[in-house]
C-alpha cells in the first residue's frame, strides 16, 4: 500500500507550448480511490500515464510512497494497469491464468498458489480455479483478468477508462463491482474517466481537470455542494447546474424585473474585474414551482419533461421578457433551464411554470475569474 504524490508535475509535449498537465499538485491517500475526471483534452489520461511512467515528466516529481519514481521505468514502479488485456489462455486453468505473471517473475509455487487462492476468494472464483476459462461466463472471465492484477499485489492500481468499451448495462454493473472490490482490497487506486457520474459514484475523492490545470479536488459531496469555480459547478452533477451572469444593483442580481437577493458579504467580495456583475448557479432541485405572480419568480416555458419515476425534470427556456436573451445556460444549452418538479404533478409540454430559487441554495461566483464566492 502506498500514497501517490504529484508534486508540481508537468508534461509538455514536444512541439507544443501549453503544458498538457501544468504543475499538478495532488496527494492521493493510502488506500484511497481517486478519480481523475474532466472533458477530453483536460490532461487526465496524461496525468495517469505520467504516474505509470509512460509519459515523461518535464518538471516536478511523482512519488509512490516516499519513493521518487519520476525517472523509474514503468515495470519497476510496482503499479498495475488494470483491464488492459483480458485475453485468457484456453489451455490453462483459471488458477494458472491468474498466476502466470508470478511464475514468470520466479515466485515459488506455494506462494503463487496462496496468492491466487486469496484473490479467487475475493473475486468469487474459488470453485472455478481448476477449470478452463471456457467454462466461465463473460463476467467471470473479466474477474479472472482482474485477478491477474490483484495477485501481483501492486502498490497502486491504475485504470484508464476501463468501462469505455462495455455496453451501458454492463458498465453500471462493472462500475459497482470495481468500486466494492477496491474497497475490500484497500489498494490505492487512480481511475480516469470523462464521465462525471462514474466519478461521483466510484471515487472516495474526485479531481477535476481542465486544460491541464487541476480545478478542484474533494469528496463527491464537496464537489457537488461547494464547487470551487463555475467550471466545476457546471461539470459535476446530472442534470447540470443552471448558471447565469447578472448585473448587480442595490444588492440584487437583476434578471429583467426579477430580482435575486445577493448576500452583502458576496457583494463586497466583488472586485474591479467583475464589472459589477455576478455569476449565480442553482441546481435543478434548488428551484420551487410557485404560482404565477409570485414576486421574483422566473417564468419557464416547458419544452420536455423527463420522468424518472422517483424524480421528474423539466427542460425549459426562459420566457416572457426574459426569453432568448442568453441570460442563463445549463447542461441543456443556452437559455435552457432545468427544474426538478414533483413527479406526481408534472406540467405539460408548452405550459409555462414559475419558479423561485430556494433561499441559501444558490452558488455565487465572480463574474470575472469564475471563482466561488463564499458567502
Amino acid at each position, binding site marked *: 500500500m502506498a500514497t501517490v504524490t504529484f508534486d508540481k508535475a508537468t508534461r509538455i*509535449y*514536444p*512541439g507544443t507550448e501549453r503544458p498538457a498537465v501544468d504543475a499538478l499538485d495532488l496527494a492521493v491517500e493510502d488506500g484511497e480511490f481517486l478519480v481523475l475526471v474532466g472533458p477530453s483534452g483536460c490532461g487526465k489520461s496524461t496525468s495517469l500515464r505520467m504516474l*505509470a*511512467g*509512460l*509519459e*515523461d515528466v518535464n518538471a516536478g516529481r511523482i512519488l509512490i510512497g516516499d519513493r521518487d519514481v519520476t525517472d523509474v*521505468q*514503468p*515495470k519497476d514502479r510496482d503499479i498495475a494497469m488494470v483491464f*488492459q*488485456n*483480458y*485475453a*485468457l*489462455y*484456453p*489451455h*490453462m486453468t483459471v488458477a*494458472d491464468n491468474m498466476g*502466470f*505473471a508470478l*511464475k*514468470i517473475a520466479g515466485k515459488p509455487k506455494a506462494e503463487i498458489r496462496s496468492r491466487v487462492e486469496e484473490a479467487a476468494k475475493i473475486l468469487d472464483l474459488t470453485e472455478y480455479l481448476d477449470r478452463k*476459462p*471456457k467454462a466461465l461466463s463473460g463476467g467471470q*472471465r473479466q474477474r479472472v483478468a482482474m485477478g491477474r492484477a490483484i495477485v501481483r499485489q501492486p502498490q497502486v492500481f491504475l485504470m484508464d477508462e476501463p468501462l*469505455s*468499451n*462495455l*455496453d451501458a448495462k454492463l458498465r453500471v454493473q462493472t462500475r459497482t463491482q470495481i468500486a466494492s472490490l477496491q474497497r475490500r482490497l484497500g489498494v490505492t487506486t487512480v481511475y480516469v474517466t470523462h464521465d462525471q457520474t462514474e466519478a461521483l459514484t466510484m471515487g472516495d475523492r474526485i479531481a477535476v481537470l481542465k486544460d491541464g490545470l487541476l480545478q478542484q479536488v474533494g469528496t463527491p459531496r464537496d464537489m457537488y455542494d461547494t464547487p470551487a469555480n463555475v467550471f466545476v459547478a457546471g461539470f459535476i452533477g446530472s442534470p447540470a447546474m443552471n448558471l447565469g451572469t447578472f448585473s448587480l444593483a442595490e444588492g440584487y442580481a437583476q434578471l429583467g424585473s426579477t430580482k435575486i437577493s445577493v448576500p452583502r458579504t458576496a457583494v463586497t467580495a466583488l472586485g474591479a474585474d467583475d464589472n459589477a456583475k455576478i455569476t449565480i448557479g442553482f441546481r435543478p432541485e434548488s428551484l420551487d414551482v410557485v404560482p404565477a405572480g409570485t414576486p421574483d419568480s422566473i417564468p419557464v416555458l416547458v419544452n420536455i419533461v423527463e420522468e424518472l419515476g422517483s424524480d421528474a425534470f423539466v427542460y425549459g427556456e426562459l420566457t416572457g421578457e426574459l426569453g432568448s436573451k442568453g441570460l442563463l445556460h445549463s447542461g441543456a444549452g443556452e437559455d435552457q433551464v432545468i427544474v426538478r418538479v414533483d413527479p406526481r404533478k408534472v406540467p405539460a409540454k408548452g405550459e409555462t411554470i414559475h419558479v423561485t430559487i430556494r433561499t441559501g441554495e444558490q452558488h455565487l461566483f465572480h463574474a470575472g475569474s469564475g471563482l466561488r464566492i463564499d458567502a
Partner: protein
Amino acid sequence: MMAQNLQITAAAPDPALLDLPWDVPLEEWPADVLAALPRGISRHVVRFVKLSGRVIAVKEIGESVAYREYELLRQLRRLDAPSVEPVGVITGRRSPDGEPLEAVLITQHLQFSLPYRALFSNTLQPDTATRLIDALAVLLVRLHLSGFYWGDVSLSNTLFRRDAESFAAYLVDAETGDLHNKLTDGQRSYDLEIARVNIIGELMDLVAGEFLDEEEDTVAIGAMLVERYEELWTALTDEESFTADARWRVAARIERLNDLGFDVGELDIMTDIDGTTVRIQPKVVDAGHHSRRLMRLTGLDVQENQARRLLNDLDAHAAATDRQNDEESFVAHDWLTQVFEPAVRAVPRELRRKLEPAQVFHELLDHRWFISKERGRDVPLAEAVDSYVTDVLRHRPDELAVLGASGLADDA
C-alpha cells in the same frame, strides 16, 4: 427485416457488404456466409466472412472504439507499418425486433498469413518460436519508430507470413494502441514488458495444450524478444562518435543498416567545434531496403527476406550470364521474364493456394541446391521445378487462407 439505419464508413465500400446479415448478432451468423470460425478466447466476437471472393474479418466492438481502431489502422497503413488493412466500420445495426446491435470493425484478411497457433500445431521446426520472436521484434521496432504505442503486444494480436527462411509479422489488433509523434522511453519499455509477459503466457498455454514441448524455456524465449528488440533499436537509433579521420564509418553505418533491411532517410552528422570528432545518428530509417530495391528493379512486391533472396539470385544470374557490368535494370528485366516468371508459372494452378509465388521461388532455390548436392551435378531450374512440385509443394497445406488455428481441436 426491420428497416435498419446502417452507417457504413469505408474508404472503398464493396456493395456486397450490404448483403451480409447485419440484423443478426455476429455469434449467430449462418454457416454459409462464414469462411471459418476463429479459435481461442477473444475479448470480442470475431468471424471470418466470405465477401466477393475474398475473406474479411468482422469484429463486434463498441462504436467509439471501432471508429478509433479503424482510424488508427488507416494511419498505420499510411505510415507503411505492417498491419492489417481496415475495410470499414458499420454502426446503426438493429435486430428485426428493434434491439440495437453492436458496431462492427471490418478488416481484410491478410492472404497467406498464419496465426501463431497454426505454426505450432503441425510439423514444428525446432526454431519456430525463435523465428516468430525475431519477426515480432522487427515489427515492434518498426511500430515504435513510427510512434505507435501498441499497448497489447502479443503473438495472438499478430499474424505471420513466411518470408524466405524467416517470418514477417503484421499487427492485427490496434484496439489498445496510440499514435504519438515520438514515443517516450517509458512507453517503449512498457510495451516491451507487456510483450514479454504476453508471449510467455501464450507459450505457457501452448505447453499446457501440449503443442509445445514442456522442456522449452518459455521465460527465456520471452526474454529473447527484449534482447532482439534492444539490439535492433540500438543499431537503428544509437549515436556513434569517432575521430574526423575515420569518416568511412558513416558509410559503414549506412551499409550496416541496409544489411538489417533498413534505409536511412535522414542522418544527423555533427562535428564538434575544432572538427576532431564526428557524431552521427540516424534520424529517419525506413524498413524494406531490399524489398524496395527489388520493387524498383522488377516491380515485384514481396517481403524483405524474400526480396533479399530474389536479389541474390538476380546477382547470381548476372554473374552466370557475364552481365555484371550491364545496366542493372535490363538484367533484372531479363531475369524476371526468363527465370522468375517461368519457374513460378510452372507451378500447376491448383497448387497456387499453397504458398505465395515469392515464397515458392525461395523454396525452389533451396530445393535446387538440395537435389544438386544429392545428384552431384548442377540441376537446371526447370528440372528442379518438377521435382519440387511433385515431392514438396504437393504435400504442403494450403496457406492462402488459414483462419483461426487449424489442428487445435479443443479450442472453444
